[in-house]
Every structure is written in C-alpha cells, then in structure tokens.
C-alpha cells in the first residue's frame, strides 16, 4: 500500500476528528505504526484541529480556579503520602501523636532514672556481699586455728591423762637457776613427750637435747625447741631409762653428751 494514496482518502482527517470507528479505526492505527508519513500527517491535522479548538474561549467562573487548586493539592498529597488522608480526624491525629511522643519521652526519663537507681543499689549490694565474704573467710580461718589449738591441747591432755604414763620432773643442775621441764614417758608404748615448763630461749646456734640414761649410758632422745606457744614436744621413743638429762648442744646435735652441758636432770632415785 502506498501511504500517500491512503492519506488522500481523507481517513487521517476522519480519525483526527474522532469519527473513525471499529475495524476502520483499528486498520488506521496499524498503518500509523507502519508508516511514519501517516503519523506526520496525523500530527499536522491534529495540530490544525487543536488550533481550531481554541477559537472561542470562555472564562470559567473564578471559583472554579480555587476548586482546581484544592483538588490538585489533594492529588499531590495523595501521591506523596501513600496513606489515605481522612479529612476531619487530621487534627486529633496529630494531637494523638503529640501525646504519644510526650508519653514516650516521659517513659524514657523514668526508665533512665530507674536504671541509675537500680545500678547504684546493685553496686551497694555487691560491696556488702564482698565484705560478708571476707568476714566469712576470716571467721573460717579463726575457727580452724581454734580447732587446731583445741586438737593439740586435747591430745596433750590425753598424754597427761594416760594412766600408764610416768611423769618425771626435771630440775636445774645449777640450783641457782629456776629451770623446769617435765617428761611424760609411757614405758609400754615407749612414747616420750616433753613439756618445757620453764626453759629460756636457747643460746644462738644451740639446741636443747634430751637424753635417756640407762646403766650409765646416755641415749639420744631428740632435739627440743623451747618456744612458748607449743607446750608438749614429741621426742624419740625410748625403751628404758633410769635418769633423764637435758643438755644444751650445737645445732645438729651430738652423739654423746658431755656432763658439763647438763642443764636439767631428773631427781635421783
């Protein structure tokens, strides 16, 4: 088909006037897509008619202008805010929002104060807990001390209380000195305990040494420390003893006592 022939039929004008209908209109619109000449021709005819349409202007009522502006603002609002705007409750809604904001601010203040308050309370509680824990540990320690002391004292008492124990009191060899010690010797169990009743601190680098004398022969019964806090010392087991000596010897002790060094001795039988 030649588009120029088609243009000559007058269908472009008819289409532009809005008078083409049905199949003819569809056919025309197809040609419009296929032939740019037809499209150009249509644009020209439409422009002529659009000019013609402007030939008798008539002023609309001025109130209509205002109506259009209001309509337009509403349309714009609608496009900007997707939520539908309900006319009357607009003000109460903003009021509600104001209240909501105020309420949430108040809640924020209250919760901030509350968290500060509870934090300080928690700190206090933690301090008190630490104090209590220290106190408890101190108490436990002193209880242990007391128990140990008690056990020691109790065992000492048991030694004294034993009916098989022989009690020998040693007195100073030099009668001018007031030295005293007591031996608790159980001949059956051969256990020997020494109670330093009144013994001064030994000279520096020296030790008290206990001896058991049997038939003129001295047996080493061990070293004795003479500190005041421990009353009863366990010495070496002794099978038999006629007499007891306490000498002051050098640190490590010696095998044979020298009679010069005797400080305390048992009374003669």
């Amino acid at each position, binding site marked *: 088909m030649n588009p120029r022939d088609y243009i000559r039929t*007058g269908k472009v*004008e008819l289409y532009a006037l809005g008078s083409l209908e049905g199949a003819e209109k569809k056919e025309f619109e197809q040609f419009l897509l296929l032939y740019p000449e037809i499209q150009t021709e249509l644009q020209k005819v439409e422009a002529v008619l659009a*000019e013609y349409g*402007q030939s*008798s202007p008539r002023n609309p*009522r001025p109130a209509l202008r205002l109506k259009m502006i209001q309509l337009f603002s509403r349309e714009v609002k609608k496009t900007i805010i997707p939520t539908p705007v309900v006319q009357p409750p607009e003000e109460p809604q903003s009021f509600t929002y104001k209240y909501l904001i105020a309420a949430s601010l108040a809640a924020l203040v209250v919760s901030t104060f509350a968290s500060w308050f509870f934090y300080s309370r928690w700190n206090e509680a933690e301090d008190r807990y630490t104090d209590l824990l220290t106190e408890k540990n101190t108490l436990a320690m002193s209880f242990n001390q007391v128990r140990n002391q008690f056990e020691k004292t109790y065992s000492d008492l048991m030694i004294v209380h034993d009916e098989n124990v022989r009690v020998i009191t040693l007195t100073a060899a030099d009668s001018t000195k007031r030295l005293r010690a007591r031996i608790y010797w159980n001949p059956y169990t051969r256990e020997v305990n020494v109670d330093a009743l009144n013994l001064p601190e030994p000279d520096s680098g020296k030790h008290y040494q206990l001896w058991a004398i049997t038939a003129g022969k001295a047996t080493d019964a061990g070293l004795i420390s003479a500190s005041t806090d421990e009353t009863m010392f366990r010495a070496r087991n002794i099978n038999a003893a006629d007499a007891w000596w306490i000498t002051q010897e050098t640190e490590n002790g010696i095998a044979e006592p020298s009679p010069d060094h005797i400080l305390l001795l048992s009374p003669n039988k």
Partner: protein
Amino acid sequence: MPGLTNIEELELVNSLRSNETEGMELLWDHYAAVLYGLIFRMVQMDEIAEELLLETFKKTQANIGQYEQRNMRLIHWMIRIAHQLSIEKIKSVDYQLVRRSSKFERGGLPEQSSSEGFHPESTRIKDIVRRLDPEHRQIINLFYLEGMNLNDVAKKRGETNEQCLSMVKTSVQKLRHYFEILS
C-alpha cells in the same frame, strides 16, 4: 492571557512534573478559558463543562509524565484531552437523557460569549477560522464539536459517504492551508 512560547511551556511542564501548585495555577491562567470555551461549545451546559474542565486539568497533571514536547505543544495536548473527554460525555447515556429532558435543541453554536474576555491568541485564530466557508466550518463542527460520525453527517447533508468524506477532507485541508499561510 497570551499564549506561551515553547520555552515557557517547557518550564511549565517541568513545574507540573515536580508537582508544584504554582505550575498548575499558571496552566490554569493561560489555558483554562480556551479549554473551557471548547468544552462548553461541545457540551453546551456550564455545569457539565465545569466538571469536564476540572477533569481535563486532573488528567493533564496525572499524565504529564507521558507528554512529549517535541511531538506536540502542551496546549494542543490539553485540547486533545478536553476534546476526548467531551466526546465521551456527549455520547454517554446520562448526557443524552439530560439533553432530552431539558428539551435542549442543538443548533447555532455560540461563537461569541458574554464572558469571553480578551484573548489575543484566540482573536488571531478566530480571524483565520472566519476565512473558512460556512459550509466547511459547519462540516468540521459537526464532526469535531458534535462528535457525529460519517454516516450521520452524510445523512444530514443528503450525501453519500464518499461525497461526505471528500467534503471533510477538503474542509480540513482548507483550514490547514489558512493556518499555514496566516501563521
């Protein structure tokens, strides 16, 4: 209000695309009278014409994104929207009923209006249109303003469809010729 230059129209289109109320006001001030004049001539009733005028502006604003200036002037595009809406209205059942009940006789279309105001652009166009033979003008009006189809116009004029089609073509060509030589 005078018509707008192409550059002014471009600015107006941009303003409309960014949803500015100012653009809409400017559009109204320049084109409302021209559009209202066309719509009124077609529907012949102020109440309906006002409704259609608002509808035209609403549609213009809603579809401004699709408007391409290189193909068509903005006022031509709006005239086309107003024309389409008015044709739809004329052909609608409710409009026909109102027309019949008001015993409104469509006849001599008012070329002049008391509230026409001063429109230099339209005066120029009017001068061009006046050069057209009354017969040609009548044919264009029957199609363009009254929305009649070829059969009806041919019957009314006692012509065959072919004769009538040829008349339509000639009428529009003449109008086009006057616009081309006098613009």
